[in-house]
């Protein structure tokens, strides 16, 4: 290895280490700020009610979706199995928005437990299978609870 190569290599290694350390600090400080969505528990732990648009994510509680016929608006509950957030929404629901499945709701908090939704995003999990397999798994009792999240 020529001296010039050694010099370049040491520059590279030193800057990599510096960048890794800086990256670690940036990552730690970003953890608080880059929250795509809050869980209902996160919300209840907040000291004051956030203003403006926020997102709340979790499971749509079973048997909680209710439709108000008059103005095509819905109410339902988002849960992380510890705390709940009540949501009111007017508009179309995405196809994959179902009870027992994950969803992310964008809207404004009226109070810490009550969200006026403006947009609903259905969350899809990483499990892919044909309908017959899903059917068979449910029948045989091998249905993994994780598939419902």
């Amino acid at each position: 290895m020529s001296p010039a190569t050694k010099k370049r290599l040491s520059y590279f290694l030193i800057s990599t280490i510096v960048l890794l350390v800086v990256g670690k600090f940036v990552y730690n400080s970003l953890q608080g700020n880059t929250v795509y969505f809050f869980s209902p528990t996160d919300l209840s732990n907040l000291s004051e009610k956030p203003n403006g648009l926020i997102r709340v994510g979790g499971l749509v509680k079973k048997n909680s979706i209710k439709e108000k016929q008059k103005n095509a608006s819905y109410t339902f509950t988002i849960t992380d199995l510890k705390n709940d957030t009540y949501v009111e929404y007017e508009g179309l629901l995405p196809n994959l928005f179902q009870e027992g499945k994950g969803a992310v709701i964008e809207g404004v908090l009226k109070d810490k437990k009550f969200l006026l939704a403006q947009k609903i995003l259905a969350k899809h999990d990483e499990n892919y299978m044909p309908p017959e397999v899903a059917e068979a798994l449910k029948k045989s009792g091998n249905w993994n609870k994780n598939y419902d999240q």
Partner: protein
Amino acid sequence: MLDLFQLKKIFQLGDSFFYWLKILFMSIIIFGLILSLFVSPKDYLQGDTVRIMYVHVPASWLSLIIFSAMGVSSIIALIFKIRVFTIYAKSLAPIGFTFSLISIFTGSLWGQPTWGTFWTWDARLTSMLVLVFFYIFYILSWKLNKNFFSAEKYSSIIAILGLANIPIIKFSVEWWNTLHQPASIKLTEAPAIHSSMLMPLFIMFIGFSLFSLFVFFIRYKTEILKLKQNKLKNILK
């Protein structure tokens, strides 16, 4: 196999090699498309939308793999001045760029019916967009810089910096709350995807990889001819 990547050998690859490679990748992709679009089953939740995955996932994987290869090549080129690695990285860039665009485009086509939105600023989608910009900056640094040596320097630095983004994309779905689902196929666990859907996915991945290799060989040859034309070929010794 390694010999293939040496300067002399690549010019010994005759037309028949390219002809058969072309036949091979095209038949694998056609076979994979038939499997994924017609033969493979619907998903129990998404229905037919799941078929977008057979293009989206291999394109995303390849855009990450190709940028990683470009980053590592750039490190070798910049530190050890083995210039042929610069040419590898330069030849790979447009292929990876195309796959990253395919990944974003098919992803938003899938996102609209599934999530209910074409685009959202979660960590996975944002970091993937950053990758697209790294590809653009890398390609632009070659286009805008007429001097080979300064273009080599700047593009290599861009590729090395962009290398830091690759683990961010990969682990974004684990480090942060994202709308994008976590990986279905992991090295350490059984895949969360049924085997009837896994097979077409891997066939498509092999087809796309062979296609990348094919374009890479062509671009590599072109780059060498360009160097010859600019009387820079002796730098590759």
